[in-house]
């Protein structure tokens, strides 16, 4: 759905009001639908719109990234305005923000939590530890990236990423959810 905003000019009588261009409809049909106040979309798209705007992440902070994640959730950056509200149970969560180092002992627990989350579910790897092991890449006890354990949708670089970086990553995830609902493949 794209908003086609033709600038209306006051003197020109033939100026067209703004209308939404629907896929599979002609220009006239789209204008008529907009005028009537009707929105057309597939059920999947509506589901994608709903899901992307009420993304409930599982609280999963294992290192300093968790502090940035808490800061992003608090009053100043306020993740609530995106409908992102942290949940303390995997059963209520839609996605998991892996904020921190995953050790070899933590990996089975992370996998279990991921499996306890109901479908559909997404994973955000926050920071260089969750992306590729980070500064502990030569350590004997650290997993070299969370994607060795569970599939990851969005990788956010940084050590730790700042709150704007986390918000950008989460917006990318919302974009991905909406694009996939349209039937497009997102890598």
């Amino acid at each position: 759905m794209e908003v086609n905003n033709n600038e209306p000019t006051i003197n020109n009588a033939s100026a067209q009001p703004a209308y939404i261009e629907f896929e599979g409809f002609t220009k006239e049909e789209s204008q008529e639908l907009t005028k009537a106040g009707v929105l057309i979309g597939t059920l999947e798209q509506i589901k994608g719109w709903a899901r992307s705007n009420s993304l409930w992440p599982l609280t999963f902070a294992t290192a300093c990234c968790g502090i940035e994640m808490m800061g992003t959730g608090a009053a100043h950056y306020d993740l609530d305005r995106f409908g992102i509200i942290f949940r303390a149970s995997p059963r209520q969560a839609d996605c998991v923000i892996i904020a921190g180092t995953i050790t070899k002992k933590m990996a089975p627990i992370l996998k279990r939590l991921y499996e306890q989350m109901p479908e559909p579910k997404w994973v955000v790897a926050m920071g260089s530890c969750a992306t590729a092991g980070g500064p502990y890449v030569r350590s004997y006890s650290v997993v070299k990236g969370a994607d060795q354990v569970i599939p990851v949708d969005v990788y956010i670089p940084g050590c730790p990423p700042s709150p704007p970086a986390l918000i950008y990553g989460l917006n990318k995830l919302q974009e991905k959810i909406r694009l996939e609902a349209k039937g497009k493949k997102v890598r």
Partner: protein
Amino acid sequence: MSEETKAPQGTEEAPAPIDPRVEKATAFLETVKGKITARFGEGVIEEALLAKFQPTFVLKKEHYLEVVTFLKDEPSLAFIYPEAMAGTDYMDKGYLEVYAYIHSFVMDADIAVKVRTERENASVPSLASLFPGYNWEEREIFDLLGINFEGHPDMRRIMNTDEWNGHPLRKDYVVQD
């Protein structure tokens, strides 16, 4: 340090001033050493030195447990409070070292007690019977350095999984992934 603050190059060298902290620590070291030798003789101490201001005793492995028991039980010493314990791998020198740091409220001072063991089949007497707080410390040293503590009530890994291969803080450990 600027040029002005340096001591002027006199004709005769002034003797280095004695640091009162070193003086105090040396006196304390000699007191404790005297009590140990009075009880066990010279043979039990491998080395008695001052690490900066810290009196340190390197004890012989076979007398380690009895000397630490004496340090704890002797009323005039009464080193009853274990503060820390650590292990180190000195691969170039060919031994492993266990370091225990004990405090005495009677003397209002700390001492460091060290004991060394060879790297192959490394083993050291356990202090867990004297200081229950050292139980987990010794398990951690076993986990990371592979030193077997004789007489420990529960000698198994504490941090790594039971199936772990090798001891990660050994200098010749190779990371397996």
